[in-house]
């Protein structure tokens, strides 16, 4: 089964080549970071987390969103997702693999990362997050491999995986919840310290992950490789529409609390994001773009006619992913640091090596994803021939 990943057409190898190039570029920059330190990044004493931790946050969401196909299929026996489930699990595996990598490249002493397990600390959310992520990775690997193998042989999956599948549902929710708790438990950062952060993270995850799955499914069908079926895609689109509306609602709730109460600490963060503070406004154009796209996409997704048009749906999905990436992958993390506890407004822009390392980690994830999907597609094709 696995050997399918090592055989393929020229196009397949070119794709792997592209990802490998990204990895190589990332590795070169990372070795520079190892020798010179995190000084090569745009982070500073005041904005001490940047794009690495932001990507981590975004990807935990993508990983968690697999639950949106797993749950209907296994819990409600929703048959239309039958072919989609494995794609969702593959996406979760590659996303959850990238998460610890993004933490690792962010560490000042990456060779000491085992200290998190050697000196387990119950009161640290970071510890629980590592556990939840590891657990989720293992669960998805086991579930994905056994169910797929069973399907390949044409029989039902072994009975012992069913409890694991059920377990993977709360674990999926927990990875993103604990990731939100990393931020929302800090009294030092009023922007993050909001009870709705975890629900908000989940809502945006359930919009961005399924959007990615729609795009992947449409691509695979376009390449005449694999068709998950129109019904599955339409159901996903509906999930995206709901999740996106809830996401916008949650964000609106945040806005209301901050702006209506008009408390300086809360207002400042939003001011920084959308207008800039003390002349620092690098984020503002991004945030406006992100918010506009989010609202437009949500409105259009609600209309069944637009959703039904797959071409148009694809565009909307790109919009959803982009807006959530801007929100989570840039806005939320950086803004928590502005203004600093001592009232300083310090701008943050990722540097070229920082972006290269980020691209490198994505390269690893995409490489794994491509190979996993290659296996899936090959085995399915073989089945069709037989």
């Amino acid at each position, binding site marked *: 089964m696995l050997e399918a990943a090592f055989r393929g057409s020229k196009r397949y190898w070119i794709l792997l080549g592209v990802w490998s190039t990204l990895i190589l570029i990332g590795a070169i920059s990372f070795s520079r970071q190892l020798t010179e330190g995190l000084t090569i990044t745009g982070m500073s004493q005041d904005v001490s987390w940047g794009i690495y931790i932001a990507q981590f946050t975004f990807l935990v969401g993508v990983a968690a969103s697999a639950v949106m196909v797993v749950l209907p299929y296994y819990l409600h026996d929703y048959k239309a997702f039958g072919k989609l489930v494995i794609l969702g699990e593959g996406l979760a595996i590659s996303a959850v693999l990238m998460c610890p990598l993004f933490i690792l490249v962010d560490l000042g002493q990456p060779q000491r990362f085992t200290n998190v397990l050697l000196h387990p600390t119950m009161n640290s959310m970071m510890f629980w997050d590592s556990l939840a992520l590891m657990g989720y990775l293992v669960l998805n690997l086991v579930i994905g491999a056994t169910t797929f193998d069973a399907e390949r042989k044409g029989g039902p999956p072994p009975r012992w995986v069913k409890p694991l599948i059920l377990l993977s549902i709360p674990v999926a929710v927990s990875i993103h919840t604990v990731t939100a708790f990393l931020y929302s438990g800090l009294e030092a950062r009023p922007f993050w310290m909001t009870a709705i952060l975890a629900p908000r993270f989940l809502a945006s995850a359930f919009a961005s992950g399924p959007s990615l799955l729609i795009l992947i499914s449409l691509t695979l069908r376009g390449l005449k490789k*694999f068709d998950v079926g129109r019904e599955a895609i339409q159901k996903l689109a509906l999930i995206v529409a709901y999740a996106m509306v809830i996401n916008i609602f949650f964000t609106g709730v945040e806005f209301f609390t901050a702006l209506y109460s008009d408390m300086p600490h809360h207002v400042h963060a939003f001011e920084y994001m959308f207008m800039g503070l003390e002349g620092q406004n690098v984020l503002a154009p991004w945030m406006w773009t992100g918010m506009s796209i989010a609202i437009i996409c949500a409105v259009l997704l609600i209309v069944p006619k637009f959703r039904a048009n797959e071409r148009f749906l694809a565009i909307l999905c790109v919009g959803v992913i982009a807006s959530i990436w801007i929100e989570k992958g840039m806005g939320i993390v950086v803004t928590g640091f502005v203004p600093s506890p001592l009232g300083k407004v310090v701008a943050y822009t990722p540097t070229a090596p920082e972006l290269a390392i980020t691209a490198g980690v994505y390269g690893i994830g995409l490489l794994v994803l491509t190979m996993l999907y290659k296996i899936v597609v090959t085995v399915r094709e073989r089945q069709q021939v037989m």
Partner: protein
Amino acid sequence: MVPGMIPVKGKGVRTMSDRKFIYIGIAVLLIVVLYPFLHGMVASGDTTQPELYLPSDASECIEETEYMTANHMVLLNEWRDTAVREGIREYTSQSGEIIKISLTGTCISCHGRKDEFCARCHDYSNVTLSCWNCHVTPEGN
């Protein structure tokens, strides 16, 4: 995502190219695993033990020499943790002697030459020496 590909041969069929890959794989694995040994066998060079600068006024370290040679890193890590984390600054040696836990105060008072003591062995055995990245390096004189 996944461009066109040729379906793989049916299950159970081993082709020539499969075998080729398997052999290459095994060879690569063997080389990687055996490299350190092979390298040790062919690498010529001085294999006599490094000569260490030892204090003239003491015949033994805080524990037996053999123990220190083998376990100084364990002992140092233990000292590090007890001193930094538990604030305990006394160590009772096997012989019952009470010794002050202090890298600079105790160890360095005898082994005051990093280059001729620590580094000699560490270079010889190719083990990274990290204490002096931060602690004041004993230059000796």
